[in-house]
């Protein structure tokens, strides 16, 4: 009897998962249908580029600055053996920033800032009937609210990641030089050593996927909020958690597909 109940509950949970996945894809179909007036959408995309991207530049720059510096110092602290050349510090800083930090970690942080913001904004619009008002006017609310956010994120996130790489590596070089752990020449040699442009491309490809995950998953949770302010908070939390988990899963899959 217990086994039957457990099996039934697990089936119910699975069907609920499929239900939400289906709902997500249906929302995406609605989102990517032809916009009502393209001119208005362009304006919205520009606003979103500012809101999603430019207003997050500060946090991205700050994080990259300190991470680049810390990676340099930690690598230096761990290279005690005379057999390992000092330029390894520059090499490690570059690899860490390009391969993982600037793409994955920055996007994980952005999923908290941008994703939470998107979910709470759309969720509040849902509970205050603003989305219903749009629907009654004949506007495709999913497309109007979500599409500009996705397009803006796909456009601006790669630039932010490139900026993060630049700031992180520069901060590493600066801290390495000023603390005396490495000379600029050695750091530069390490930066150039065995450099493959493909690694930057790999990082940028990942960012496209992460940008889509952050905006679409957060918008999905916000769009289907029901209830009151408490539920908006819960949607926002769910948006961040699901985005982060999906980013980590996607990171693993993409790394396996692109690097190996």
């Amino acid at each position, binding site marked *: 009897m217990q086994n039957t109940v457990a099996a039934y509950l697990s089936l119910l949970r699975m069907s609920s998962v499929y239900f939400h996945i289906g709902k997500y894809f249906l929302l995406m179909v609605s989102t990517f249908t032809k916009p*009502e007036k393209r001119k*208005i959408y362009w304006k919205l995309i520009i606003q979103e580029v500012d809101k999603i991207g430019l207003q997050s530049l500060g946090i991205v720059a700050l994080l990259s600055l300190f991470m680049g510096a810390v990676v340099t110092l930690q690598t230096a602290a761990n290279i005690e053996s005379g057999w390992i050349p000092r330029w390894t510090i520059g090499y490690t800083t570059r690899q860490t920033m390009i391969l993982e930090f600037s793409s994955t970690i920055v996007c994980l942080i952005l999923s908290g800032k941008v994703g939470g913001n998107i979910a709470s904004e759309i969720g509040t619009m849902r509970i205050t*009937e*603003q989305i219903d*008002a749009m629907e*009654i*006017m*004949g506007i495709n609310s999913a497309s109007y609210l979500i599409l500009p956010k996705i397009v803006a994120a796909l456009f601006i996130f790669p630039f932010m990641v490139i900026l993060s790489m630049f700031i992180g590596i520069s901060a590493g070089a600066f801290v390495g030089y000023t603390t005396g752990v490495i000379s600029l020449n050695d750091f530069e040699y390490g930066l150039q050593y065995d450099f493959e442009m493909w690694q930057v491309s790999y990082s940028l490809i990942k960012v496209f996927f992460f940008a889509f995950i952050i905006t679409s998953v957060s918008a999905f949770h916000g769009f289907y909020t029901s209830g009151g302010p408490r539920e908006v908070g819960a949607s926002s939390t769910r948006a961040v958690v699901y985005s982060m988990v999906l980013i980590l899963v996607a990171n693993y899959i993409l790394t396996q597909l692109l690097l190996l």
Partner: protein
Amino acid sequence: MLKNVSVEFHPGKVNFIIGRSGSGKSVLTKCIVGLMEVDKGEIFFDHRNFTVLDRWDRKDIRQEMGMLFQGSALFSSLNVEENILFPLQMFSSMSKSEMLDRVNVCLKRVNLEGKNKLYPSELSGGMQKRTGIARAIAMNPRYLFCDEPNSGLDPQTAIVIDNLIREITYEFKSTTVVISHDMNSVLETGDHINFIYQGELSWRGNKHEILHSENEALNNFVFPSKFMQQIREKLRG
């Protein structure tokens, strides 16, 4: 939730849907405007079957609708002018100056001239409702829906909103559907009244007939207290 409800709303008149909380009047309205899908039955807008249309074909009918929401549902990131401009920008082929003229006409109609640049958070409840009405009439709607237009308003402001809805209905000759609990509004402005009880249309009539109705559920709803029953007796007499 709703069972065998068959209602006809009259053009150029204020049609009320009344009923207790949870009776199904909001569900009925959401079904009519297409925010909820019906399991069975049909909804017609001037002989156009709304229920069989897909999202894109519904768009034409929806552009003929205006709706005033219970909480006004103004776009909080837009000011009064932008809120009213919104449907015009999306669907009209007017020039910018024509749109602004239209906005000012609508604002004048609801006595909110000069409030163009205020944001919803800077408006009182009554002003928010009037902005909601201005946005709803921006596209000259054939069908105007008002969900509890007086909720949260003081009696005097409620009367202002009632009068505005009635005047606009007669002026635009729109088919107006109002959901309300406010019996003062119902008896003051209701041309046609539909009473929903436990998901069914229990009674229909006008504001004069409501006084003489023998429908027990209706009488308990409209005249719940001894005082109200005494008023009814006086009015009947």
